[in-house]
Structure formats: C-alpha cells, structure tokens
C-alpha cells in the first residue's frame, strides 16, 4: 500500500507540470472538508492549524516553503540572502522587495506600508498575537519606499527568515485593519472573518466553526488562475467521517489530517473514488522520561529537580532497556500505516539534520533488554517485577485521549511486562493535558507521571529554537508557573553551551553538525525515547488534480494550481 500511494503521489506531481491551460473559474466548484472547523480567518489571533490553512487561501506571506522545505518567493521576486545583498553582512538586517503590480482583492495596490503594518500589528503588546515568536528579536520594520521593506534585528540572525515567511505570517491590508491595533484586535469581527488578501480566493460568507464560502479573487496576479470559481470549506465531525466523504461518498474533494486506523483507510481507498496522500515533516511521537521524582508525597517539590532525582529512570540501563524492548515498526504499521515511520531521533528532518548514530533502537530485542536489566542489578521479585534496593520498576504512563495512542500504550505495556516492568496506563482529555491550567495536576508540563507520550513539532525548516527547549533554564517549576519546554527536566552544561554556539553559527553545514550532535546527546542520555516519525495524511478525490501535499507550510499552499480532472 505504501508503494501504491508513492506511485500515485509521484504521478500526481508529474501531472501538475503537464496540466492543461485552464481559464480562471472554468472548473466550477470545489469542496474541501476539514474535520476541525476554522474558527477565525486571522492567523495572528489564533495559532490553530485549521485557521492557518483556511486563511492561507486568502492571505499570503512574502515567501513560503515548498513541499521539500525549500524557501520559495511568493509576493517577492527573489529571496534576500547575504550573497545577493538582501541580508546585511552583520546578519542584523534583511531587505525584502515586493513584486510589481500586486493588488488586494478590493483593487487597491499592495505596498510596503502594508507589510510594516502587519509587523506592528503582531508586535503590539496588548494584542495577544499568537505568532509573536516568529518576530522574535525584531527591533524595527520600516518601508524604504513603496515596494521595499527593511527588517532590523537586535542580534545577528543567521536564519533571518522568521518574519513574513510561511503561513503563520501573511500580509494583511493596512487600510482594512487600521482600527484594529492592540486591544481592539479581537473586536474587529468583520475583518477577522473576511480579511482582504492577495490569495487566489476571497471570502463571500464565513460561519465560524461551520463553513466558509469563497469565490475566485478577480485581482489575483495570475489571470488564468485559480481554475475553480468557488469553494465551500466545510468543518465539523470527525476524521473517519471526513475520509468517508472523499473516498466513499464523493461529496467532497479534499479532506485534511485523516488520523484513523490504517486498515479502515485502505479499505475506504479501495472504493476507487479517491487517493490517500501522505508526507512527512518534523513531527515525532515520543516518550518523555521524567528525570525528577513525581512522588505525590513530595508535595510542592513534586516533579522538580529540587525534589531529587527519579528513583529508577536516572539509571541509564533502565532507559536503554525500556527503549530497546519497543518494536517501533509494529507500532508504525498498526497505528499509523502510511502516516508513520519508526524513528530513533528527535529531529527527523530536513535531511541534513538527521543523525544516523542511534539507529540500533529500530530493532526490538527483548532478550537484550532483559540482560541489560539483569546486569545492572534489577532482579525479578516474586511478583515478576524487577526491583533493586527496594525500588520496584513500576511506571505510570500517561498520554492524551486518542484511539491510536491508547493502542500504542497497550502494546508498550505488554512489552514492558515481558522485561519485568509494571505499567499503569492513564489517559487525559487533550484540552486538559495540553492546556496550561495551573490548578490541574494532569498537564504535560507538570509531568506528574514517570513517562508521558505526545507529539512535538517545529515549524519551518530551522531547528534552532526547537533544540533550545532542553536547556537547564527551561524546566517547568512552580516558580515559573509551570511554564517551560523541558519536560524531562534534562540538565547538561555541555548541551547548553552547544545551543549557545548554534545561535551564533551562520554556516549551514556547521549548523547541521551541531544539531546532529545535540540530537545524539539527547538520545544517548535517554532524556526521551522517540517512537514514530509522523506524517500528515490527507485524501483527495480522483477528479481533483494539481494537489501537492506540503508539511512545511499550509497544505493548501498551491490551491491556485488545482484543477478538475
């Protein structure tokens, strides 16, 4: 089945190049279904993927990533680099030059002032902008003339493509949003529900959390595109129902993010009405080890380094045994199908950052795990559970509520019982687990368990900020109100030093080498146990052509190129 979808994917990609020259609007209507309905069309007020992707059909950034992770110019003609002078030699400024003749969907011209406004809109302290981190270290954004924008950073940025790049940073019209700065941003419902943009479509009706009706943008820069005259973008229901509407009933042309059992998905695909497509980005489902002690008896010091180290997870033998007893290929095949590959790294892509030093974990070896534990002094007790110096290997393993995750838990519990480890399973509603509510003991930051499982991801193609998650200062503690990214409570001075070095390194090969070293450090010291490299699975009707799935940006990035077969 994997080969089949690979062949179909390649064929689709090739057919894009040879597509017939259609006129704008000649292919009629297209139906898209996202089972999580978009709630707002302003990505600056929402970070939800569904909102980012639906708005990407209407508003666009200056540049974005293509399906291979390469930067491509979108509203500009060339990407500024140090070589062509767009980026200054001290790496502190970057200058973007807009393409000629760009128009907003209401007819007015796109100018550099709109770009400057966009930056100020997001950087306003009272606005609660969800994409603020992409504008990190920006000191000033100014318009040198009507078509040139200069961004100045406070520190040298080897990777200056944060602002205005990707679906999280689209350009909005200054005239439309002029009264919506700061605290007024959420009140501009009309603007938030119908932004004026440069994209191939514009909004005719928006019903929040329900459906969006769009029509082709008459001012779009390519007069022959988009091929579709109108769009219905529906939301609601669940992934299985969405898959059904594309693959079995034919009511919809495109369905996004189909996280369902692979056996069901391939059965639906066999009906012959649609094709399942998948591609891989940076998402890795992993087990986060807790290197501190989650014992409730510790009270306030629970799950902090101040409460002492974990009774047994700080023993490298235990962590190694736990990792090597897992059959990742089976987990991928049963739970994810085409949407998952086994992995032993926390950075699975882009290719230059991938390390090969840890791949021995890909093979399950229960006997080896048992030997490792025996040799380290963990002997089986009368109940079959290993213990040493009175400490039993009993693990509380928590994750969010999700059928695939529960199946993974069931597998891992069984394998660990074969090596003499007792496991208690716990699952928590996603809105609680991933929320930051400080009164709840079940959030993933608090990590009041021994092992927790979830998927983490970084946006774009540069892992610098991502690797910075595991420095010593990122521990969630009561003092930081449990904010922080370092869930395993990993602390290593060498790691911190390398991360600082990465921030100042400009050469791409050096950066790749440092990232690989950081990745290996985390893996070999067992701060986390990666399981599956997860991809995105979507489906499109066989009557829809031109679809190129893209996990580095919005999946609808090339919706202007879609056509009816």
């Amino acid at each position, binding site marked *: 089945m994997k080969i089949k979808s690979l062949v179909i994917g390649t064929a689709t990609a090739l057919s894009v190049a040879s597509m017939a020259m259609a006129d704008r609007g000649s292919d009629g209507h297209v139906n898209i279904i996202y089972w999580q309905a978009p709630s707002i069309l302003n990505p600056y007020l929402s970070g939800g993927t569904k909102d980012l992707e639906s708005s990407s059909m209407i508003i666009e950034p200056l540049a974005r990533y293509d399906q291979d992770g390469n930067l491509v110019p979108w509203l500009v003609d060339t990407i500024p680099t140090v070589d062509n002078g767009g980026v200054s030699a001290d790496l502190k400024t970057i200058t973007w030059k807009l393409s000629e003749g760009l128009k907003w969907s209401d007819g007015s011209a796109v100018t550099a002032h709109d770009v400057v406004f966009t930056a100020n809109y997001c950087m306003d302290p009272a606005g609660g902008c969800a994409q603020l981190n992409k504008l990190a270290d920006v000191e000033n954004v100014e318009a040198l003339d009507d078509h040139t924008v200069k961004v100045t950073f406070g520190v040298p940025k080897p990777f200056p493509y944060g602002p205005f790049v990707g679906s999280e940073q689209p350009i909005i019209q200054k005239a439309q949003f002029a009264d919506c700065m700061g605290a007024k941003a959420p009140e501009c419902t009309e603007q938030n529900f119908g932004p004026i943009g440069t994209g191939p479509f514009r909004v005719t009706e928006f019903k929040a959390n329900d459906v969006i009706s769009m029509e082709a943008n008459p001012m779009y820069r390519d007069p022959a595109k988009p091929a579709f005259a109108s769009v219905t973008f529906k939301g609601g229901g669940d992934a299985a129902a969405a898959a059904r509407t594309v693959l079995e009933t034919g009511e919809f042309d495109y369905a996004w993010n189909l996280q369902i059992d692979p056996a*069901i998905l391939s059965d639906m695909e066999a009906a012959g009405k649609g094709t399942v497509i998948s591609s891989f980005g940076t998402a890795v489902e992993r087990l986060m080890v807790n290197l501190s002690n989650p014992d409730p008896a510790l009270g306030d010091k629970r799950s902090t380094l101040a409460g002492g180290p974990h009774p047994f997870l700080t023993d490298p033998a235990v962590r190694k045994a736990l990792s090597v007893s897992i059959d990742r290929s089976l987990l991928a095949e*049963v739970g994810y199908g085409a949407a998952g590959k086994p992995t032993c790294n926390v950075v699975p892509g882009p290719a230059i950052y991938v390390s090969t030093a840890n791949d021995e974990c890909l093979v399950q070896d229960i006997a080896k795990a048992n030997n490792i534990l025996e040799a380290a002094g963990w002997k089986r007790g009368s109940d079959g559970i290993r213990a040493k110096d009175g400490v039993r290997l009993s693990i509380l393993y928590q994750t969010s509520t999700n059928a695939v995750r529960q199946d993974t838990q069931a597998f891992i519990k069984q394998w660990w019982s074969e090596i003499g480890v007792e496991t208690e399973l716990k699952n928590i509603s*996603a809105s609680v687990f991933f929320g930051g509510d400080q009164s709840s003991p079940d959030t993933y930051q608090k990590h009041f368990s021994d092992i927790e499982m979830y998927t983490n991801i970084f946006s774009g193609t540069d892992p610098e900020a991502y690797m910075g998650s595991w420095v010593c200062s990122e521990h969630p503690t009561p003092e930081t109100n449990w904010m922080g990214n370092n869930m395993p409570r990993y602390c290593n001075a060498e790691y911190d030093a390398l991360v600082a070095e990465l921030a100042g390194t400009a050469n791409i090969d050096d950066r790749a080498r440092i990232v690989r070293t950081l990745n290996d450090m985390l893996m070999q010291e067992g701060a986390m146990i990666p399981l599956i490299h997860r991809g995105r699975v979507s489906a499109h009707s066989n009557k829809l052509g031109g679809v190129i799935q893209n996990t580095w940006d919005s999946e609808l990035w090339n919706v202007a190129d879609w056509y009816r077969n």
Partner: protein
Amino acid sequence: MTEELSTKRSSQWRDVWLQFKTHRGAVIGMIVFFLIGFLVAFGPLFWTLDPNFIDIRARNQGPSLLHPMGTDQLGRDTFSNLLAGGRVSLLVGVTAMALSVLFGTLIGVISGFFKRLDGPLMRLTDLFLALPLLPLLLVMIMLFRDTLRGLFGPETGIFILIVSAIGLTSWMPIARIVRGDVLAVKEREFVLAARSLGTHNTQMITRHILPNVMSPIMVSATLSVAAAIITESALSFLGLGFPSDFPTWGRLLYDSTNFMKLSPERVIYPGLAISLTVLSVNYIGDGLRDALDPRIRGR
C-alpha cells in the same frame, strides 16, 4: 392482631411474586438478566484468555475455535473483553441507577409531601439540571482522582468516581416525576382518611404514598440503567472514564463503530450485550410495576 398482620405481610409478597410470574416477558427478562450476570461473574474462571493480551498476528480475525467472537485490531480476544467489560458495565449501571433512584426518590417524595420544602428543593433540582455535565465531571475528576486512587487503587477509585458522577447528574428527572405523582396521590381520599386516623408522616410516606408511586419509579429506574451504561461509554470516549486497558461494553461499542464495514460482527456483540441487558431489565421493571400495583394485582 399480630398474627393477622404477619400472614398478611407474607401473603402480600407472595401475591406480588404470583402476579410477577404471570408476566411472561418479565420472567424471561429475569432469566436472561441472571444468565448474563452469571456468565459475566463466573465466565472468566472458565475462559481464561487475558482480555488485554496482544497477539498481533491474530488481528482483525473473524470467529474461530480459539476466538469464538474474533479479535480486534490489536489481536485481543473479543469474547474475553466482552466478559470483562460486562462486569464493569453491569456494576456501573446497577450502582449508578441505585444511587440516582435513591436520591431522586428521596428528594421527590420530600418535595411533594412537605409543601414548605417544595420550593427550595425544586430550585435545587433546577440548579443541577442546569449544570453542564462535562465541566462538572472534569472538576470532579481533577479534585478527587488522585485521592481516590491513593485510597482505593486505580480501578476502584475511578469506579467510585464514575458511579458518583453519573448518579449525581441523573437523579433530577426521577425527582421531578416522583414529586408529580406524590402531589397527585396526596390528594386522594384514602390519604385523607389515613390522616384523619392520625397516621404520622413517616408512616404515611412508607405505607401509603410510596407504594402508590412505584410505577414511575420503576420505569425511571429501568431507563436509567441503560442511560448509565451509555453515559459511561461517552465518558470513556472523552478520556474521563476507566483507564484504557479496562474494557467496558460502551467502550467496545464505540471503538468498533468505525470498523463497521470491515468487521461488522465486532459492533454487533457489544451492541447486543447492551441491548439484551437493557431489555431484560426493562421487562423486569414492567413485571415489577404490574406486580406491585395493588390495582392490577389479582385482577
């Protein structure tokens, strides 16, 4: 006098049993229910396959000698899951029902009988009706899960939590209905007669009012067993239920709904189990209602 009373009492229950026996559906329902209960309680002693054992090579199989009801997507035996799930579901259903009926009848009778308490108690009912179930559950779980887990162990702790949550949120309709009937019965002549004879309030309630409002209580009780089992499945689906390695009929049904086209029998078994249990309980309730109602009895 005493002798007459005691013979009267034993013959009254004997009458009830005789009337119950004439209701064929009720008798069949009772047999089926006890059969299911017996299977679920003692079945695992004979069918010893572990419901959680994953045998990946045997996944998504149809019925066979080794797996009489087939296997699920991880190769776990459906039959042993059904037996284990039955224990939990039946226990949750019956206990939650008992709690809500007890509480509902108490509030309903007091509210209908004592006029002064009617207003405040009915406003309390309104309050509980208006509370959203899910946030209430989230709060209860957050506050009590860890303490109960520490006191009773993970399974019993969650069981107490779920049963209390369902019981606390389903007593309101029963209270309203009982109150309505108590208000009607209170105005009947025989109540007036009993009061003029000097009967105390407690005796009035237990000997005169309560037996006459048995009918709606029975119907509500039987409906609430079904509701409790299904509510428990909805809770598991939201992550507020038992840990995922605990099978229950509701969860089995929910997990298999998406596999309907691939392996339809996986949906039928838990669905059938739930339906049969609910049906038999309902028929028993019907028979009991007929038997306890003095106007129908001995007709």
